[in-house]
């Protein structure tokens, strides 16, 4: 019978010495590191309202697609995950495929936005953004790409304004919030959200990030940084790492009222699939989503479990439903090498077949 542990003292010391050496080598790189920029794919501002901006991406030649694609991101985190860095940019890849891409940047809510409701976001902001893009192209309907919470918003919007959406794509979008393994949903089920929002007003981004870190505390708070030591001597890799850190922690606060509704109606009440959701007094019926739907989810998603997304197929009214399982996580679906190769081309081809 052998012992499973065979760590020689000399080997252990060598490990420590190596760790130390890498740390020492990393000092210079870290100290001289500027805040990494995002990809900043050329874009023009086409609409703004309050803190919201609608960007139209330019700079990659003329789009071949006749119908523009509006990306609706989540309120949590910034939209720049879709355009993180030049070689890992979903936006850039979509442009290169020939899509005409618009993006809603929700901005950073402050206390003036404390009372924004889901109705304000979906039937207000989002609807006006859609109208702007429709008018610019002289179209009745455009294509929507909703991401995560933005996917849930897009589903609600499409159900409420079916005539304005031609094709709908949802990415890592929670639909059934009560699937087993949904840790976020599990944790907030017993929360008194009214008291919470009444007390904090807007929900601080740092608090949200804290909760996300505690989903996988050791991996996200420790192992990740231990792994970073291995790339301290590689400025390029370190820059990528720090850019991701910037994106993760440079997050907007959440408008209190919208947060309250989202937690109560979606996370706690699971009303989107129960058919009892009301936005601005209007009933949201996923059966009204009769447009073609492409539902993309990540198989290793720890924030939105695959089953939470997969459920969509059972509830939308369309007969033209396609789902695509991506081998990766909630973030990897935008920035991994595999994602660059697989996701934008799949979106483009799916849209082209329905143009």
């Amino acid at each position: 019978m052998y012992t499973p542990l065979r760590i020689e003292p000399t080997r252990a010391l060598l490990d420590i010495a190596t760790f130390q050496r890498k740390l020492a080598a990393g000092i210079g790189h870290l100290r001289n590191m500027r805040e990494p920029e995002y990809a900043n794919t050329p874009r023009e501002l086409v609409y703004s309202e309050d803190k919201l901006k609608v960007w139209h991406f330019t700079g990659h030649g003329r789009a071949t697609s006749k119908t523009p694609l509006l990306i609706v991101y989540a309120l949590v985190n910034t939209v720049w995950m879709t355009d993180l860095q030049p070689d890992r940019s979903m936006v850039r890849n979509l442009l290169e495929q020939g899509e005409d891409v618009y993006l809603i940047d929700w901005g950073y809510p402050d206390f003036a936005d404390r009372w924004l409701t889901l109705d304000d976001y979906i039937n207000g902001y989002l609807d006006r953004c859609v109208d702007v893009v429709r008018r610019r192209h002289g179209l009745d309907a455009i294509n929507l790409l909703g991401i995560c919470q933005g996917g849930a918003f897009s589903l609600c919007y499409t159900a409420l304004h079916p005539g304005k959406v031609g094709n709908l794509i949802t990415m890592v979008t929670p639909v059934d919030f009560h699937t087993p393994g949904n840790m976020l949903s599990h944790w907030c089920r017993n929360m008194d959200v009214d008291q919470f929002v009444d007390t904090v007003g807007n929900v601080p981004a740092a608090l949200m990030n804290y909760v996300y870190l505690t989903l996988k505390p050791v991996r996200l708070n420790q192992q990740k940084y231990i792994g970073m030591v291995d790339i301290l001597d590689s400025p390029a890799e370190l820059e990528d790492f720090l850019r991701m850190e910037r994106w993760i922690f440079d997050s907007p606060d959440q408008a209190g009222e919208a947060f309250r509704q989202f937690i109560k109606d979606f996370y706690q009440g699971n009303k989107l699939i129960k058919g009892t959701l009301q936005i601005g007094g209007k009933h949201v019926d996923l059966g009204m989503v009769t447009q073609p739907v492409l539902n993309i989810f990540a198989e290793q998603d720890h924030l939105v479990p695959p089953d939470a997304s997969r459920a969509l197929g059972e509830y939308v009214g369309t007969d033209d439903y396609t789902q695509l399982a991506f081998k990766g996580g909630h973030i990897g679906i935008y920035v991994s090498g595999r994602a660059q190769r697989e996701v934008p081309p799949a979106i483009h081809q799916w849209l082209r077949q329905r143009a």
Partner: protein
Amino acid sequence: MADQVTDFLKNDFIRDYQALARQSWESWAKQLQQPATNDFFKPPTPPATSFASDALERTLAGLKGYFDWMQGVAAAGSQEPAGDWRQQLQQYFGGAGQPFAQAFGGIDSAGAEGFIRQWQSWLQGAQYGGFGDLPGADGATPAFGLNREQQMQQQTMAAAVLESLQASARYQTLIQRANAQGMERLQDKLALHAEPGRQIDSIKALYDLWVDAAEEAYAEIALSDEFREVYGEMVNSQMRVRHLQQQQTEQICLQLGVPTRAEVSSLGERLQSLRRELRAGHAPSPQDLAGEIAGLRRELAELKRQLADGRESASAATKRTAAEPAVSKSSARAAASPAKNAGAKAIAKVARKPATRKAAVPSPSRSKPVSRAGSRKRK
């Protein structure tokens, strides 16, 4: 000689190395936390140390725990080998540098700042020495006189603080349970490595295996009903304390004539409500109306033209087909009313579901396009 080397490794070297390593670590951390002072090299743009420092706090918290643990493992490994590998494992993970605790301890940030720290600040502000000194901390007592309301508020606060501390303690108990179960899982995982070629021979490999085990154990507990209840209780009790703090602060502000958060919030709510009403009642501009009227006129003219054409052709058809087979009433009505028919077609076009298509997205490697066919609707 060999014995001397071994002794050196086990004792002096380890001790000296650990001291050196600690110094090295501290100087590394210290240096990173200070702004650049080298006059010979200055970045052409504003120094980037601020960003590095931002990331540093998080990074160091995780790295420090790991570093301490590595040293602990090395030190334990240099001593007489434990008889059983499980005992050896206990030595590795039993120390104060336990990385699981570090993983939780290090994620304190501005937004998630420990509420205990806030309470302590509040207690200091209220000039109490500790929870035991708070009126009502040992249970509610009747209050009298001019300061009755304040006393009652303090009692409520004390009770809320204690309740919150109890909830936090329950939460910590679950975290510790996750930690203990993580160790049990690690042993199970290690047992699978008890054969040549599969043995764990580096600190990093052991650490990675432990992370897998710890996360698995944590996830199981975090998804339990008990955790859900405790988590909710912890959040709710913390919010209750914070809410009471805010109430007391607001009362002081009101006495001083300082605008309060509640007042600002109330104004914000009214403003947002007005904005909604404004948008809902927003009349289209004259230009919009003119354009819409012109469009409607064009549409009306077209419909009239179609109607006139239809009447003519219907009249001609009636004359021409006296001997032709009869058609259904609805078809006849539709044929006799092309304008209505056009409208019906338009509605049908809106209401029609798109034709069923098979999912035609190419299947990237390991991706799974699934068509709707075969999926059962729950509705």
